[in-house]
């Protein structure tokens, strides 16, 4: 069977499964809708958290980034896993004991302030929409690449599926579909990785394979060979970083604190029955996440090696079949700079600007011509990072069913994250904005109806973002982490660990963190992008890492302000003492 037929079958089967789960797990109350009734098994919550967390970016893009950045890719690997240590140790158990529904719930109650609650609602909605736009786009891309469906129709189908289980089932439906989606996505990620690891090194586990010797008879270690090849071709050695230590440090810290402060992740820990379950559940979640995150750098190294092997110094006509397929979709481009009919893959950018602008004509060898300036380097190959996960099974000549599996996995990753984000948006609107602020006399049934309506509206907006992606999506994803790190993380942390922390300190801390982070990013990304180089940055910190500085400022301002303003009311102090103890002695 062809890869396309198999893809239809796999995608159809998995979608059928998600719908069946949705019908089986409908929500009957607001508690079901917001936190799945609060009785999700910690293992199930671990898997759901992993699927919730691992987005289209983790699944489709991360290995690609590492493949081309080598050692610098570690900031994502450590940042997006290390945050779970912070979450498990410093936030999750106490927030579970707090036993409410949302992050703005905590901020509003702990800081006895509607202003703080509303700032939190705004941050939640902004962070979540930023994120969701990318997910819906990811769904569209997978559909269009593998099923040759129009990208907009793909987004529409994805919206329909999410609509079904998110609106019907709320958190309960989302939780159990996420468990299924985790299984699909991890299987789809590991199978090709294991195949390729066996092909290159004879070691079945990719996370060990990439530290082993290659089986080409040379007896060299895989990374040693890759370092040699990359340097020979005038690229940075794979295992050497190019980013400055200070920038790596700040970016990693921002990603970690941001991960711990992301509302759609935090809220998953409201769904387990007890404090002890919240702790162990974070452990399960990280095991599930680590399976993908320890495999990704291996996939990256294998792919880089395979690509150099398959393409470098090959004549255009002799290039493998996948080359022209991905060239047609614009993810690859070749310019025959020295007119020898062979592809030279070297260091440096092939084109200027970096992304190809196809002129619609074909060159001497049949390649698609581009109208870009050719850069100063001798590199003739443009290669999009996203190709690594999508095309690697074809590059490694794996059977068709593996190729089809990758598509189903990509959809699972994007849909599961989108659903988790939608729920957070809908509960911020129906619970925090309506029930707790504007319309306090809503009945349970009305609130549930509003939750469903806001989920439906959020899906429509998310779909529009997917169909008409705002140009700034990629730019603002880093912003989402910076924002979470500079706003929520310090305020929640201090709210638990200091009984003296008060409203004034929280609001001034959040604002100063937000303002610093926002203005730095807006300045370098939108107002003066031409100055976005290390020599103009403060202390060498890129906009990606500025969230850490925002976070430190938030902490500093809060710690000073709380010393010169009145302490919080007795009831709040008692609440903080209460959430620190799993259960009062009897």
């Amino acid at each position, binding site marked *: 069977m062809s890869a396309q037929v198999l893809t239809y079958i796999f995608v159809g089967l998995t979608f059928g499964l998600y719908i069946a789960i949705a019908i089986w797990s409908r929500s009957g109350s607001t508690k079901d809708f917001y936190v799945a009734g609060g009785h999700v098994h910690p293992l199930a919550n671990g898997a759901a958290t992993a699927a919730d967390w691992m987005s289209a970016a983790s699944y489709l893009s991360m290995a690609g980034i*590492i493949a081309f950045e080598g*050692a610098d*890719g*570690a900031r994502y*690997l*450590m940042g997006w*896993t*290390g945050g*779970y*240590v912070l979450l*498990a*140790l*410093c936030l999750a*158990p106490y927030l579970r*004991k707090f*036993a409410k529904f949302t992050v703005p719930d905590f901020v509003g*109650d702990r800081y*006895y302030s509607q202003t703080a609650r509303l700032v939190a609602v705004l941050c939640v909605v902004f962070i979540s929409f930023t994120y969701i736009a990318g997910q819906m786009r990811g769904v569209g891309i997978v559909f269009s690449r593998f099923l040759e469906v129009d990208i907009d129709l793909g987004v529409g189908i994805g919206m329909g599926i999410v609509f079904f289980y998110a609106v019907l089932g709320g958190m309960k439906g989302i939780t159990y579909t996420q468990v299924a989606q985790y299984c699909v996505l991890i299987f789809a990620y590991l199978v090709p990785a294991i195949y390729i690891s066996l092909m290159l090194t004879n070691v079945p586990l990719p996370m060990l394979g990439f*530290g*082993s*010797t290659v089986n080409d008879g040379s007896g060299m*270690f*895989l*990374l*040693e060979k890759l370092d040699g090849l990359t340097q020979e071709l005038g690229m940075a050695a794979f*295992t050497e*970083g190019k980013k400055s*230590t200070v920038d*790596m*440090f700040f970016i*990693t*810290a921002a990603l*970690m604190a941001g991960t711990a402060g992301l509302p759609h992740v935090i809220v998953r820990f409201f769904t387990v029955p*007890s*404090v*002890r379950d919240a*702790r*162990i559940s*974070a*452990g399960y979640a*990280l*095991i599930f996440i*680590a399976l993908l*995150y*320890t495999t990704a*750098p291996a996939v990256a190294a294998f792919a880089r090696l395979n690509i150099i092997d398959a393409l470098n110094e090959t004549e255009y006509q002799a290039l493998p079949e996948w080359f022209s397929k991905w060239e047609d979709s614009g993810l690859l481009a070749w310019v025959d700079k020295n007119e020898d009919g062979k592809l030279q893959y070297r260091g440096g950018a092939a084109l200027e600007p970096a992304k190809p602008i196809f002129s619609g004509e074909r060159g001497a060898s049949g390649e698609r011509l581009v109208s870009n300036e050719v850069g100063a380097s001798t590199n003739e190959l443009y290669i999009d990072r996203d190709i690594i996960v999508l095309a690697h099974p074809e590059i490694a000549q794996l059977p068709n069913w593996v190729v089809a599996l990758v598509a189903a996995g990509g959809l699972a990753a994007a849909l599961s994250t989108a659903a988790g984000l939608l729920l957070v948006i809908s509960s911020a609107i129906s619970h925090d904005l309506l029930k707790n602020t504007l319309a306090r006399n809503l009945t349970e049934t009305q609130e549930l109806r509003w939750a469903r309506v806001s989920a439906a509206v959020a899906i429509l907006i998310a779909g529009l973002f997917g169909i008409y992606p705002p140009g700034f999506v990629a730019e603002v994803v880093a912003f989402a982490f910076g924002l979470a790190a500079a706003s929520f993380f310090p305020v929640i942390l201090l709210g638990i*660990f200091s009984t003296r922390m008060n409203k004034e300190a929280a609001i001034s801390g959040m604002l100063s963190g937000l303002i610093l982070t926002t203005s730095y990013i807006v300045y370098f990304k939108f107002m003066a992008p031409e100055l976005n180089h290390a020599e103009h940055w403060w202390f060498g910190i890129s906009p990606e890492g500025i969230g850490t500085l925002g976070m430190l400022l938030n902490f500093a301002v809060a710690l000073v302000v709380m010393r010169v303003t009145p302490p919080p009311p007795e*009831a*709040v102090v*008692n*609440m903080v*003492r*209460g959430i*620190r*103890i*799993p*259960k*009062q*002695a*009897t």
Partner: protein
Amino acid sequence: MSQKDQQQPDTQPSGAPVEDLARKAADEIGHQAYWRANVRTLLSLLLVWFLVSFGCGILWVDALNAYSFFGWKLGFWFSQQGSIYTFVVLIFVYVFQMNALDRRFNVDEDR
């Protein structure tokens, strides 16, 4: 602010008021000791977290890269593999230590 303990109906007063007060004071001291022990556990685990990820994975990565570990340079291994394994272990050590602490201070959820 309706932060009443719906979760813990078992905190209802029972017995004579004087005993009640005495028990409350004892609880208070117990809870403070529990919290201090909790924070100590956290700080020691976070120290390891910091040393492995920010230390071995970022600050000392070049120095560690002088050594090799199977087929990896050591610093590279820490930043792309070792730190992640350490994070997983840290969370499970935390769970184990906290469960023991909960039982020792009589605040675990099983009773």
